[in-house]
């Protein structure tokens, strides 16, 4: 075979492979940047940025089966994703809104994190004088530890260019479902008529919840490290008006704490943020909501 006379099939192969490459490129774009055993994509909730208004973006992680990343408190091992934003003047990023995690691990080591896929919503603010500047590029460098049996540190650059307009934007149809699902997984404030109390013994905290109904399934996720033993079983005692949950203190807790903050997940689905002072019962609000 000579270079001058390629077989007749050659041009077709070229066209086909070009088409395949184009398809792959489109697919890669939609799937986001590679991270170890997964992908990361930066997605916007709305079609454009409305100058002078807050808006939301999210880091959408998709992971291969069995691999996980970590919550803000990673538990016994691992570390949470860390984000370095690169934003145009006039746009500022807020803190990550962490969905309720899952307990991952064994009898002796328990981590808090996410398997399969997770959306980390980040609220952003756009100043009113942005309108004149044209499209805005939202970029982030994300460091993330991805683990299964073993851990692999990854780093990805993700970005998104959005038009800036004076009027408010409709939602982005492609990401609307993702954002809606992500919001469902976010811990919400505990209803105003729920009451929590926290007492302590030498080796444990006892969290009492008065929710007006018997609770048979509750898991607590401590927001801060080194307060509660992650691996110790959480002992739940259902009571007529709620529950009593015994949380063993962390061996690393050497000084008393004033408050215990965290996420309470009921029946494996509804997550609530709670912040309970140690010692005396607390009423989240003086007026009951229902």
């Amino acid at each position, binding site marked *: 075979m000579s270079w001058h006379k390629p077989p007749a099939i050659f041009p077709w192969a070229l066209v086909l492979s070009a088409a395949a490459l184009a398809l792959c490129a489109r697919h890669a774009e939609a799937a986001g940047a590679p991270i170890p055993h997964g992908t990361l994509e930066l997605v916007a909730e709305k079609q454009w940025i409305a100058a002078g208004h807050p808006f939301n973006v999210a880091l959408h992680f998709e992971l291969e089966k069995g691999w*996980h990343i970590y919550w803000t408190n990673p538990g*016994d*091992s*691992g*570390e949470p994703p860390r984000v370095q934003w690169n934003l145009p003047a006039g746009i500022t990023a807020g803190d990550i809104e962490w969905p309720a995690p899952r307990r*991952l*691990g*064994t*009898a*002796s*080591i328990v*981590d808090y994190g996410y398997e399969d896929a997770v959306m980390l919503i980040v609220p952003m603010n756009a100043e009113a004088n942005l309108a004149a500047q044209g499209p805005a590029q939202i970029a982030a460098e994300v*460091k993330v*530890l991805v*683990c*299964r*049996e*073993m*851990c*692999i*540190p990854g780093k990805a650059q993700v970005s998104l260019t959005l038009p800036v307009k004076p009027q408010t934007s409709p939602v982005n149809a492609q990401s609307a479902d993702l954002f809606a699902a992500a919001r469902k997984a976010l811990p919400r404030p505990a209803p105003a008529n729920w009451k929590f109390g926290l007492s302590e013994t030498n080796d444990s905290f006892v969290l009492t919840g008065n929710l007006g109904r018997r609770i048979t399934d509750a898991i607590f996720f401590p927001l801060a*490290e*080194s307060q509660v033993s992650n*691996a*110790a079983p959480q002992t739940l005692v259902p009571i007529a008006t709620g529950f009593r949950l015994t949380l063993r203190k962390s*061996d*690393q807790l*050497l000084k008393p704490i004033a408050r215990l903050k965290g996420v309470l997940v009921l029946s494996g689905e509804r997550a609530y943020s709670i912040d309970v002072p140690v010692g005396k019962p607390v009423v989240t609000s003086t007026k009951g909501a229902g």
Partner: protein
Amino acid sequence: MKRSTFYLMFVGLILGLIPRTAPLLLAAAKVGEPAPAFTATASDGKTYKLAGYRGKYVILEWHNNGCPYVGKQYNSGNMQKLQKQWTSQGVVWFTVLSSAPGKQGFVTASDENAYLAKMQAAPTAALLDPSGEIGHMYDAKTSPQMVVINPQGVVIYDGAIDDKPTTDLADVPGATNYVSLALEQAMAGKPVATPATRPYGCSVKYSDSSH
């Protein structure tokens, strides 16, 4: 028939419970309390007994050569530097290998000797703990978790190697090393200011580890 079913269930319950609760039932090492005694075979073929080192400071370093947090300490040369610095002052340094067979970080004696030579590591000995017995005794959660035991045999530090819980080599130079701090303070007759921290890193790959 019913009775045998009952016994089977009973035995099953016991068998099911023991491995899950054993690490919790054992008296785990705690800061301020006596360090649990152990005897271990090292990669050099010798047997080491913790009780034989009363009168000396002892460091335990949980190790897994595939863990990126361990890699950060060894690839930067920091762990080897600490090993040389402290063993030259009479401190005993045990690297502890608690990965179960088939898990990341599990090594044979000759694998470990080759690793120690390649990395120019200088612990007193590298203890082989494939059953995870020593790991569970100390409730070791991660590599590189670090424990410091004083000459009276009491745990005076248990936790992270330093205050930078990342895999980034660039974080080594600016980090506060909790192990050195504990040793310096204890040797100066002062109380250890930070005796316990969250031991960041990779989970120890015990036989029941799934993550």
